[in-house]
C-alpha cells in the first residue's frame, strides 16, 4: 500500500471526526433552541454516539488490516 | 445556608437598595451595582496603569538613565500594558455592558446574576495577585505583556503568579461574556427583535463571542508556559522538539481578536452618541451590524501579521498581508457611516459628542498606521519600534479610552441623576485631545527614525521628540486626574438630570427616571418600540 493510501485513510478518519463534531454541535443548538421540549437534542446525540461507534470500529479494522499504522513513522532507533 | 425568599424580594415596586457595604456591594446581584463596581475598578486601574506610564515617560524625558533601573523600567512597560488591557479597558466595557444592556433591551437584570457577581469579584483578586509580583524575589514580569518565551520564563518567581493572574482574569472575562450572550439572546423584551437592538448591544454581542472563542486559548497558552517553566515540558523549547514561535502563534490567535474586543464596544458607544447629538438616525444601521460581524470574523484569520519579522514562509506573509488589509473595508464602512450620520445633522457639541468626534478622527489615524504595518516588507522596518507604539496607542487611547470617557459623560446623568459640569467637561476634552496628540504623534517619527520600543535609554538624536512626547504624557495624565475630579463632583451633586437628559436621544434608557431606579423592567412585557432608535426595523 502506497503513501497516498495512508494519507487518504488519515483524511477519512479526520472527516468522520468532523461529522461527529457536527452532530454534537447540532445537539447543542437544539439544546438551546428547543429548551428541552422536543427530542431533537437527544436525537442528534444518538446520531453522534452511533457515528462514534462506527468510526471506532473502522479504526480497529483499519489497524488490523494495516491500512493505518499508529504514528505513521517508526520510533527512532535509540537516543 | 440559604435564606427564605420573602414576598418582599419578589414584589414589583420595591426600590430599596440593600443596606450596608457587604449586602450592597459584596453580595450584590444587581446589574447596575455590579456595573458601577466594574467602572470604579476600571477607573482605579486606569489611574494605576497610568502612573506606570508616567514613570516610563519620566525616564524617557531625556537620554541616559535618570530615575529608574532598566530592569524596573521593563517591569513598568509590562505591567502598564497588563493593567491597562485587562484592568482598565476590558472591565470598563464590561461595566458599561452591565449597566446599559439590560436597560437597553428591556430586561430586568443580567441573565445569570450570581455569575455576574463572581465575574466582577474575580478581578480585584487577580490584580492583587499580579501586583504582588512587585514584592517577590525577581520582581514583576518584565518580558513584555505578550509573555514571549523564553524571555518570560527567565522571570524568576513571578511566572506562576503571572499565569494564575491571567487565568483568573480569563475566567472573569469568559463568564462575563457568557452572561452577556445569555442576556442578549434570552432577556430581550418580547417585542424587541435582533435588528431593533441598539448598536452598543450588537457590538457587545459580537465582542462576547470573540471573548468566549479566544480567552480559553490564552489560558491554554499560559498554561503551557507554566508547565514549561516548572514541570519540564518542551512546548516552547526547540531542544525538546517544541518551538518558541509556536507560543507567538497561539498567543496572537488570542491577541488579535483581543484588540477587537477592546475596540468593538467603542464602535457601539460612538454609534449611540453621534446620532443623539447630530439629531439624526444612525446612517446604515444594518451595514454597521454586518461590518462589525465582518471585522470579528476577519480578526481570526490575520494573527500572524504580528509576527512578520519572526520568519514565516512567503505564502504565509502574502496571505496575512492581504487578509489584514481587508479589515480596512468593514472599518471604512463604519467610519463613513458615522460621517454620513453627522452630515447635515443639527449638531451640537456637548462633551460626549466632542470625545466621539475625536474618536472617529484619531482612531482613523491609528487605523491608517495599521494598514501601513500590514505591508509585510515595510513592517520589517517598523517592527518593535516606536511606530507600533504610536499605532496601538492611537487606537487604544483616543480610540477605546476616549469612547469610554464619552460613554461616561453620556450616561453619567442617567447613573447619578446629576448633570456633569459642561464647562469642566469641555476643558477636560480639549486638554486631553491636544495632549494625547502631543504625546503620541511624535512617536510615529521616532519609530520611523528607528527608535526601538521597550528600552529605558536612547540615542541623542531622538531626544527632542521624546521630550515633547513626555510633556504630552504628563499633561494627558493630569487631565485624567481632572476627569476623576469631574466624576466625583457629578456623583456628589450638580444640576438635576431629567429622564430624557439629551433632547432627541433615543433608547429605552431615556424612558426611565434619572438616576435609574435600582430595579427596572421587572415584568416580561412588550416595550414601546417607538422609543428605541431602531424600533421600526424589521
Amino acid at each position, binding site marked *: 500500500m502506497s503513501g497516498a493510501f495512508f494519507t487518504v485513510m488519515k483524511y477519512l478518519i479526520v472527516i468522520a471526526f468532523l461529522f461527529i*463534531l457536527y452532530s454534537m454541535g447540532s445537539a447543542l443548538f437544539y439544546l438551546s433552541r428547543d429548551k428541552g421540549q422536543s427530542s431533537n437534542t437527544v436525537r442528534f446525540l444518538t446520531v453522534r454516539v452511533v457515528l462514534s461507534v462506527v468510526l471506532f470500529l473502522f479504526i480497529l479494522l483499519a489497524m488490523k488490516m494495516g491500512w493505518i499504522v499508529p504514528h505513521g513513522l517508526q520510533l527512532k532507533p535509540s537516543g | 445556608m440559604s435564606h427564605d425568599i420573602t414576598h418582599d424580594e419578589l414584589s414589583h415596586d420595591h426600590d430599596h437598595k440593600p443596606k450596608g457595604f457587604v449586602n450592597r456591594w459584596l453580595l450584590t446581584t444587581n446589574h447596575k451595582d455590579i456595573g458601577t463596581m466594574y467602572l470604579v475598578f476600571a477607573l482605579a486601574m486606569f489611574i494605576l496603569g497610568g502612573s506606570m506610564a508616567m514613570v516610563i515617560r519620566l525616564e524617557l524625558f531625556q537620554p541616559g538613565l535618570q530615575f529608574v533601573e532598566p530592569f524596573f523600567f521593563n517591569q513598568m512597560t509590562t505591567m502598564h500594558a497588563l493593567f491597562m488591557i485587562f484592568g482598565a479597558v476590558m472591565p470598563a466595557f464590561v461595566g458599561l455592558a452591565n449597566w446599559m444592556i439590560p436597560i437597553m433591551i428591556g430586561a430586568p437584570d443580567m441573565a445569570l446574576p450570581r455569575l455576574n457577581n463572581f465575574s466582577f469579584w474575580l478581578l480585584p483578586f487577580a490584580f492583587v495577585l499580579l501586583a504582588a509580583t512587585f514584592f517577590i524575589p525577581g520582581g514583576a514580569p518584565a518580558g513584555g505583556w505578550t509573555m514571549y518565551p523564553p524571555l518570560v520564563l527567565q522571570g524568576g518567581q513571578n511566572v506562576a503568579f503571572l499565569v494564575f493572574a491571567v487565568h483568573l482574569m480569563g475566567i472573569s472575562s469568559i463568564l462575563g461574556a457568557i452572561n452577556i450572550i445569555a442576556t442578549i439572546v434570552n432577556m430581550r423584551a418580547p417585542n424587541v427583535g435582533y435588528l431593533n437592538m441598539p448598536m452598543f448591544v450588537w457590538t457587545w454581542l459580537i465582542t462576547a463571542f470573540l471573548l468566549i472563542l479566544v480567552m480559553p486559548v490564552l489560558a491554554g497558552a499560559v498554561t503551557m508556559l507554566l508547565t514549561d517553566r516548572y514541570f519540564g515540558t518542551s512546548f516552547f523549547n*526547540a531542544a525538546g522538539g517544541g518551538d518558541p514561535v509556536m507560543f507567538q502563534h497561539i498567543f496572537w490567535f488570542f491577541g488579535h481578536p483581543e484588540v477587537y474586543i477592546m475596540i468593538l464596544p467603542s464602535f457601539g458607544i460612538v454609534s449611540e452618541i453621534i446620532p443623539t447629538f447630530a439629531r439624526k438616525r444612525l446612517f446604515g444601521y444594518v451595514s454597521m451590524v454586518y461590518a462589525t460581524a465582518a471585522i470579528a470574523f476577519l480578526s481570526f484569520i490575520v494573527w500572524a501579521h504580528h509576527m512578520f519579522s519572526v520568519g514565516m514562509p512567503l505564502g504565509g506573509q502574502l496571505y496575512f498581508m492581504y487578509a489584514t488589509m481587508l479589515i480596512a473595508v468593514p472599518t471604512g464602512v463604519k467610519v463613513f457611516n458615522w460621517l454620513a450620520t453627522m452630515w447635515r445633522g443639527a449638531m451640537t457639541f456637548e462633551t460626549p459628542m466632542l470625545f466621539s468626534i475625536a474618536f472617529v478622527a484619531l482612531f482613523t489615524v491609528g487605523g491608517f498606521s495599521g494598514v501601513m504595518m500590514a505591508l509585510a516588507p515595510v513592517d520589517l522596518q517598523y517592527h518593535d519600534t516606536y511606530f507600533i507604539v504610536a499605532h496601538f496607542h492611537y487606537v487604544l487611547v483616543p480610540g477605546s479610552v476616549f469612547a469610554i470617557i464619552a460613554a461616561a459623560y453620556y450616561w453619567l446623568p442617567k447613573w447619578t441623576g446629576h448633570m456633569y459640569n459642561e464647562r469642566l467637561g469641555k476643558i477636560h476634552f480639549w486638554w486631553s485631545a491636544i495632549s494625547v496628540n502631543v504625546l503620541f504623534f511624535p512617536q510615529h517619527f521616532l519609530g520611523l527614525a528607528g527608535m526601538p520600543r521597550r528600552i529605558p535609554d536612547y540615542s541623542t538624536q531622538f531626544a527632542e521628540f521624546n521630550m515633547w512626547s513626555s510633556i504630552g504624557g504628563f499633561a494627558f495624565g493630569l487631565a485624567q486626574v481632572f476627569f476623576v475630579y469631574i466624576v466625583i463632583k457629578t456623583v456628589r451633586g450638580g444640576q438635576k438630570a431629567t429622564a430624557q437628559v439629551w433632547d432627541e436621544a433615543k433608547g429605552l434608557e431615556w424612558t426611565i427616571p434619572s438616576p435609574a431606579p435600582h430595579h427596572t423592567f421587572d415584568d416580561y412585557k412588550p416595550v414601546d418600540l417607538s422609543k428605541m432608535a431602531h424600533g421600526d426595523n424589521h
Partner: protein
Amino acid sequence: MTEISENQYYVPHKAKWPIVACVGLFITVIGASLKFNSLDLEPTTPWLMYLGFAILIVMFFGWFGEVIKESEAKLYNKHVDASFRAGMIWFIFSEVMFFAAFFGALFYARTFAVPWLGGEGTNLATNVQLWSGYEPVWPTNGPADLNGRFETISAFALPLVNTLLLLTSSVTITIAHHALLANDRKKTIIWMIATVLLGATFLFYQVEEYIEAYQHLNLTLESGIYGATFFMLTGFHGLHVTLGTIMLIVITIRLIKGHFKADNHFGFEAVAWYWHFVDVVWLGLFIFVYVL
C-alpha cells in the same frame, strides 16, 4: 416560598457563594504559586493550596445546593431555564476552545516545528548548524533527546479499552436520557449508575496508563514535545472526566431523590451534554494522539 409567574424573572439576592469562590480560587493559586516556586527546594506540603481546594469544594456544594433548592421551589420558570441553557452551551464551547489550544500545539509541532528542526523547506541551515543529524520522526523528544529514550503507549492496549469504556458510557447515558424522556425513572437511574461505573473504570485505567508510562516506558512530562502534548492533552481530559463523573454522581443522586421530570430536566441535560463533550474530546485524543 412564593411561586414565580411566567412574566417574571427570578433574580436571587445576597449571593454569598461567588465571593467564597473568589477567596477559594485566590488561596488555591497563591498556594500553588508558592509550591511551584519551591519545587527545587526540599519537599513541602502545599497546605495553602489544599485549603483553597477545600473552600472550593464547600463552595460548589453550597452554590449548587442553593440553585437546586430554588429549582425545586419552582422559582425557575422557562425563561430562567433558557438562560441556564445558553450559559451551559457557551461554557462548554469555551472548554472546546481550551482543548483547541492544546490540539493546535500538537498539530503545529507535528506539522511544522519538528519537520523544520529536521531541515524541511528553507530550514536546512537550522538542521545542519544547530541540530546536525537530527531526524524528524514522530514521536520525538526533540533533537537534544530530552529525558532519554522512551516508548509510547500502544493504541491497541489500554487506550483501546478506554475508548470502548467511554463510548459505551455515552451509549448508556443516551439510553438513560431516552428513559427520562419516557418518564421511566427506574430505568434512568439504572443506566445512570452504569454510566458512572464506566466513567470511574475509565479513570482507573487512565491512572494505570500513567503509572505504566512513568515506571516502564520512561515516558514522562519531560520527554520532549511528545511527552508534553501527550500528558497535557490526556491529563486535562482526565481532569474533565473526573469532574464529569462527579457531576454524574450528583445527578444520579438527584434522580433517586425524585428530582427532574420528562419536561423539566435542565440539570440532567447539562451534565449529559458535558459527558458527550468529554467523550468526543477523547475520541479526538484517541485519533490524533494515539492512532495517527
